[in-house]
């Protein structure tokens, strides 16, 4: 028990400790010190990754519930606890986070200004992300969520491209709005549950169906969904993403696409759905429709881009649409009974897998864009071409990663897409067809990109002399991501094994919660009965 607490806490806070060391022990002055800071940061993220492997080792996939649960009292007067744990939904995402962060740290060599500040914020960001994935207390979750927001704001705003301020503020406002909505929902649950922040207990109350009324669930779900959909991002809350990606430095884009977007999906699975089963069911069709629309919309928008990074950013909008569909294909009959739980399980598993696959492939794509941007300092798709000839190894890896994004069987992108579309067929054939037709558009924009960047006679843009092959560091990042894309595509069971029991339990409890809530007599929304701002507990 104590061991678990130590392990989880060390995993979360090791980067923070390292950031403190950076703040005290290093100076920005000379190249040696900068090199030392880079390796130090990479080393810390590597150790964090090893720690997450230790968590994985202790994790028992056969169990469905929360594991390694560790609790410490934090703010007893408000019933806030420092409560951590992992289950089949968070475990794969924790692994994804530490791996992508380590690779991004290796990709951070391109940062040459104010390296110390960058590295400190980078490490704090990792703490925030890991905290979000492990927190089992709503308040703690919210704190980590906001903790992650600030470093990101500065990382884009200070180390970004020419329009970094606009992008950073847009990111901040969007995410802040999402955070505020989440805060309102959090308080709704807090005051309706007898001052409880414990996510597991709240989910249990929702399952019992007597605590949260139908209206409250619907309102809370909408608030939470918008909050998380901004992160996901899903149409129409997505426009911060292209700007943020275009301006963010390469490693930050990798984290943004590889991990941050997954928090939207994770939030829906961890909070919005289990806490509001009734709300989820009411909104299910809208969610699936939004997901299908996002797929098509994102693909069309990607098709029209001339900025390499913007194109990859819109491809994320398109790919994350599958995540939304997969989670929401919850079909019920006239009497509220569940139709085809296997399909829904499959959809959630597919959505989870799609998050992991997208984490690998889009981080890889952004890295590949970054490699060439570091050399020629532009991203104009119309000024590329012929890179295959100049950088064959780089182009080979890039094509593997782009094909992973395209959803080629044998690579990671395929499985999530097929699972999701297959499951949505049970829910609504029309939406399934719309979602599936995305494969054509995806192929079109990805292959057109490959044609414009890698194929063709020769490179005619600026700085042709700078197009040298990847160095060892870049090679190792590209190789790791490509290898992950292949491994996940060929042995997907390594990940499905972790999550299947948890998702199975999730669908079962949600159905119970829905049925229980559905039968409850209507009650007034509790918030209106009491004062909207209940008195703070007396000290």
């Amino acid at each position, binding site marked *: 028990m104590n061991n678990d607490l130590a392990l989880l806490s060390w995993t979360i806070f090791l980067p923070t400790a390292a950031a403190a060391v950076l703040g005290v022990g290093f100076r920005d002055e000379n190249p040696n010190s900068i090199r030392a800071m880079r390796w130090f940061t990479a080393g810390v993220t590597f150790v964090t990754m090893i720690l997450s492997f230790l968590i994985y080792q202790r994790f028992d996939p056969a169990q469905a519930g929360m594991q390694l649960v560790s609790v410490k009292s934090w703010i007893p007067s408000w019933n806030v606890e420092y409560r951590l744990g992992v289950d089949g939904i968070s475990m794969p995402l924790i692994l994804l986070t530490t791996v992508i962060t380590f690779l991004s740290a290796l990709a951070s060599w391109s940062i040459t200004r104010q390296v110390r500040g960058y590295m400190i914020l980078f490490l704090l960001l990792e703490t925030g992300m890991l905290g979000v994935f492990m927190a089992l207390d709503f308040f703690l979750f919210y704190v980590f969520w906001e903790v992650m927001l600030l470093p990101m704001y500065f990382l884009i705003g200070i180390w970004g491209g020419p329009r970094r301020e606009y992008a950073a503020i847009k990111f901040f406002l969007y995410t802040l709005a999402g955070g505020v909505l989440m805060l309102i929902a959090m308080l709704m649950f807090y005051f309706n549950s007898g001052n409880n922040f414990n996510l597991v207990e709240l989910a249990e109350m929702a399952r019992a169906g007597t605590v949260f009324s139908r209206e409250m669930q619907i309102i809370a779900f909408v608030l939470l969904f918008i909050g998380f959909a901004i992160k996901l991002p899903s149409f129409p809350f*997505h426009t911060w993403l292209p700007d943020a990606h275009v301006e963010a430095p390469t490693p930050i884009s990798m984290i943004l696409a590889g991990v941050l977007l997954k928090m939207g999906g994770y939030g829906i699975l961890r909070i919005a759905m289990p806490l509001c089963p009734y709300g989820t069911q009411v909104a299910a069709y809208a969610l699936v429709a939004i997901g299908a629309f996002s797929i098509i919309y994102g693909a069309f*928008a990607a098709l029209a881009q001339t900025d390499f990074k913007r194109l990859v950013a819109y491809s994320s909008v398109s790919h994350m649409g599958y995540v939304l569909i997969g989670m929401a294909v919850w079909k019920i009959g006239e009497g509220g009974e569940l139709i085809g739980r*296997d399909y829904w399980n499959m959809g959630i598993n597919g959505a989870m897998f799609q998050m992991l696959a997208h984490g690998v492939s889009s981080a890889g794509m952004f890295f590949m864009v970054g490699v060439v941007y570091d050399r020629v300092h532009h991203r104009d798709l119309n000024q590329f071409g012929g890179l295959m000839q100049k950088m064959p190894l780089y182009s080979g890896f890039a094509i593997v990663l782009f094909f992973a994004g395209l959803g080629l069987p044998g690579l990671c992108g395929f499985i999530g897409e097929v699972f999701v579309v297959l499951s949505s067929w049970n829910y609504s054939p029309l939406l399934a067809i719309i979602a599936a037709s995305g494969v054509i558009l995806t192929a079109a924009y990805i292959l057109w990109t490959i*044609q414009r960047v890698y194929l*063709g*006679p020769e490179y005619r843009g600026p700085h042709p002399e700078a197009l040298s092959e990847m160095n060892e560091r870049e090679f190792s990042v590209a190789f790791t991501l490509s290898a992950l894309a292949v491994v996940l595509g060929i042995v997907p069971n390594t990940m499905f094994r972790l999550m299947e029991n948890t998702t199975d339990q999730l669908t079962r409890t949600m159905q119970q919660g829905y049925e229980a809530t559905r039968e409850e007599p209507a009650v007034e929304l509790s918030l209106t009965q009491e004062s909207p701002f209940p008195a703070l507990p007396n000290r």
Partner: protein
Amino acid sequence: MSESVQQLLMWLIPGAPLTAAILIALFGPKVLRGQSHWLCWLGIATAFGCSLALLTSITPEGFAVDPSQPAVVIGYEWIKVGSLDIRIDLRADAMTSIMLSMVTGVSLLVAIFGSGYMHHDPGYPRFFAAVSLFVFSMCMLVLAGSFLMLFVFWEAVGLCSYLLIGFWFRKPSAAAAAKKAFVVNRIGDFGLLMAMFLIWRTFGSLDFDWVLNSGSTEWQMIIGANRETITLICLCLFLGAMGKSAQFPLHVWLPDAMEGPTPVSALIHAATMVTAGVYLVARCTPLFVWAPTAQLVVAGVGAATALIAALTALMQYDLKRVMAYSTVSQLGFMFMALGAAAAGPEYVTPAVTAAMFHLFTHAFFKALLFLGSGSVMHSMGDVIDMRRFSGLRRVMPTTHWTFLAGAAALAGVPPLSGFFSKDDILASLSAGMTHGDHRLYFAIIFLVAVLTAVLTAFYTFRAYFMTFWGPEKFPEEAGAHPHEASPVMAIPLQILALLAISIGFIVGPLTHRFSSYLAHTMGLSETHPHLHWGLMLLSTAIAASGIYAAFVMYVRSPAKAEEARLRSGRLYDLSQNKFYFDEILTTLVVAPLRRLAALSVSFDRTVIDGAVDAVGRLPRLLSQAPARLHGGVVGNYALVMLLAATAAVVFVVQALGRQ
């Protein structure tokens, strides 16, 4: 043969080329370089040997035990989630064994030819790595035991095709052709995906041994209850087949695919991959027999494709493009035959057998024709325009006679292989014309087939005469001494020529070897076909008339060709411009999609971002209104003060007045 040996064989067939592909990819560029072809040859030769062994092991003894039982090798569990359990299994039956032997055999010959053709190319190892990868994927495609696995390798062969069409990626046209091939194929893949979902929903499984096994009563109940869905499934499957097998209107990618190296055109875009669609429909015969509407669609699309492609081939001057359109047209023939299974239950097996037999013979003579074209191209310094060379028969005697053998087989000259297979197809169509519910429909299709056959003989021999007859003429790119193919290229040509000549009467309707072997496939039955003497005469007349017309126009009196060209006017234009399909597709499909793409971006910019920015500006606006009041102009303050004072006075006076 013991079961473990058979399993080993089945693993080796895809395993050997895969190993070769990986090794060449790893060591090719640095270590093997110009010797990369050895590994590729070794891998494919192993696969070929194993395929032949499998071919003999799977029959006849194997069938004596249980005729419907295929050889299955359990692979590994790919995906296992809840009730979903998808394994990578290898499954071989009669149809698989035939396809495997054909694929690996042609691949081996093409790989040998390729080592001569690609000599000196800087991408030499890459070529052989991709070819090995293709052979692996294609073997897995035909060994697939479930629709999902079939789909996976369906995409994989598409990837190999993409990589090889774009092999000379520096050429913008090659890069564009590769993209076009993949994207157009994706439209078909979308259909296949849909079919897969529908099958999964209807049958609860994707395994061939369940979905295509018409034996069980449960299966028949499913079919009976879902007739409309079955039709939909078959149409979706056929959409997939249309993409891969380049059927109208998705045929536009195949002619462009000729940008790839010629051995690739021979292997992937003539003999093997493009026939995967035919294989798929033939494989799904047990479903198609329950969907006569789909069968009619198959036949109709096949007929339209065959005719349009043959008309287009008439006036092409690019030798490889003539062959490409010919491939499209011949694939249309195969689909016509598959559709003719609608004539009635007893005509299913002959129809499917005819299609598969044509697929089989076509692989040999079309690969031969492509490799022959490649040999011409190699010798002419990469010039492929038939107007720029002629009279090559003395300079390139081996290429000449082998090309002639292939052309004669394609034109249907008896007793070459193409003659027998085309004759079988015509027989199936005439069965549809005289039996079943759709006689008129099949009568039209039969006429189209006959017309197409005449055109085929004509354009094939037009190409032959333009290339090998007439005055000796070489382009300057060919250098001083155009040369005959080197032995490494000539030997595959000769072997293929012998096969194209003889395979028809060795295994064809004269001996029934092919049909009686293939009959041991799920959904097919043992039949005793008879020879169709009347049709054979007709076929002979067709071939003779086409060849004679070509001879008259392109050898005896070339002025006639000019005259015919002038007289045909409009049709000539259409044929030469490929019926403007590329332009039509660009206007009707690509341009609207582009416009939609631009629309989504401007929607993002103006509507969504406009709203977001407006919200962002809101606080400033709210603060601006009071700010304007505090502009610092004293006059304003005085005015406001005056107004306020007046208002106050008025208010007070009124208030007092009311009291």
